[in-house]
């Protein structure tokens, strides 16, 4: 069929298809016109190729680097004047460190932070970990961060999107983030951290609990209690240091 002998309505239909192949506007015509249906299918396939072409890889989001600037508005202005990116980040990191040290040591009385406070501070320090993500940590990395002697994580744990060895209270411990139903949940596996009974803590947004497990403990921190409850038993059953 050529353009000249197409039934009335095909020109308009195809113009619409090439502008918006997924449009329902032309469904009535398509039901009666096999040729336009073929044209629409071709255009949808073309769109799939366009989408692949457009979906170029982009850099990862670095939340920690971005948040460093909130402590110094002048950095924003300086950056506009052409300060190189690396110098800007180094400067921001220095300012951030200074502010954190300032917060820590300018209090009237220095008291040792509780385990819960340390955990919240650590999560803030690695704030980039607490993000929604669909990208799982590789199994090799996960096995390196969480050796079998500490825990064996099954599929019931959920999607692990962050795994890092971190220092809590002087001990290097696995720091994981699992995607809960209602948001990311931080898990710290602390075989050296003994607590006599469950300790709840929070800051008004994040809620956490440190659960005693054998000679050690597990911290679970997130925004929604349902996510914490789900992971409580799962994580207790996953750790191996008590056996």
């Amino acid at each position, binding site marked *: 069929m050529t353009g000249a002998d197409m039934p009335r309505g095909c020109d308009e239909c195809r*113009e*619409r298809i*090439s*502008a*918006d192949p997924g449009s329902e506007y032309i469904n009535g015509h398509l039901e009666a016109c096999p040729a336009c249906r073929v044209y629409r299918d071709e*255009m949808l396939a*073309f*769109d799939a*190729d*366009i*989408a*692949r*072409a*457009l*979906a*170029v*890889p*982009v*850099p990862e*989001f670095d*939340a920690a680097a*971005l*948040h460093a*600037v*909130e402590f110094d508005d002048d950095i*924003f202005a300086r950056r506009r004047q052409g300060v190189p*990116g690396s110098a800007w980040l180094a400067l921001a990191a220095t300012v951030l460190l200074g502010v954190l040290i300032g917060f820590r040591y300018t209090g009237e009385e220095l008291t040792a932070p509780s385990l819960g406070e340390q955990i919240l501070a650590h999560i*803030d320090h690695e*704030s*980039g970990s*607490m*993000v*929604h*993500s669909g990208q799982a940590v590789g199994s090799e990395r996960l096995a390196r961060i969480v050796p079998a002697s500490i825990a064996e994580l099954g599929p019931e744990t959920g999607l692990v999107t962050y795994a890092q060895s971190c220092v809590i209270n002087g001990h290097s411990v696995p720091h994981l983030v699992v995607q809960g139903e209602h*948001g990311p949940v931080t898990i710290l596996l602390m075989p050296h951290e003994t607590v006599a009974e469950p300790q709840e803590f929070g*800051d*008004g*947004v*994040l809620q956490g609990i440190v659960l005693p497990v054998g000679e050690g403990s597990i911290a679970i921190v997130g*925004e929604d209690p349902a996510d914490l409850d789900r992971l409580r038993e799962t994580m207790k059953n996953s750790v191996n240091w008590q056996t």
Partner: protein
Amino acid sequence: MNSNAAGRARRRRFERIVGVFHQDMHRYALWLCRDRAIAEDVVQEALLRAWKSLDALREDGAAKSWLLTIVRRENARWFERKRLDTVDVDGLTPAQSAEVSEKFYESDEQLDALRAAIFELEDAYREPLVLQVLLGYSTQEIGDLMDLNQGAVLTRLHRARLQLKAMLAGPEASS
């Protein structure tokens, strides 16, 4: 909630939002300016602006449009600044051919050719196509973002696809 907790909550909200849409922001910037270095600069500026004005975003459900609008403005600002800073306008034209030849990620001749063709599209046609195909915008939403009526959006999208087809078919096909 004390101020520290409020600050943390604000930060987490921002990270949740940006964590979801960061890729979209970056790809949109890249296809607007067609230069990786400029796109990174534009996104960085957009993130800073978004952070500073986060409280103006009342509904997280509107975050995508909010962020992409900021990217669009930052891209315009970037080129406006450069236009004012220098008279060598040609030297600031995004390095299209170099960008294309860099081969983003797949060794696929057809895909490379399509990508090169998209790079060659006029801005007025490329942007609505990116918004529709990559970012899932409806024609109404594209019109809202680009300040165009829906008829104009449909016309641009129609021409964008036809021009891409013609470019991929080559000069012999059109003669």
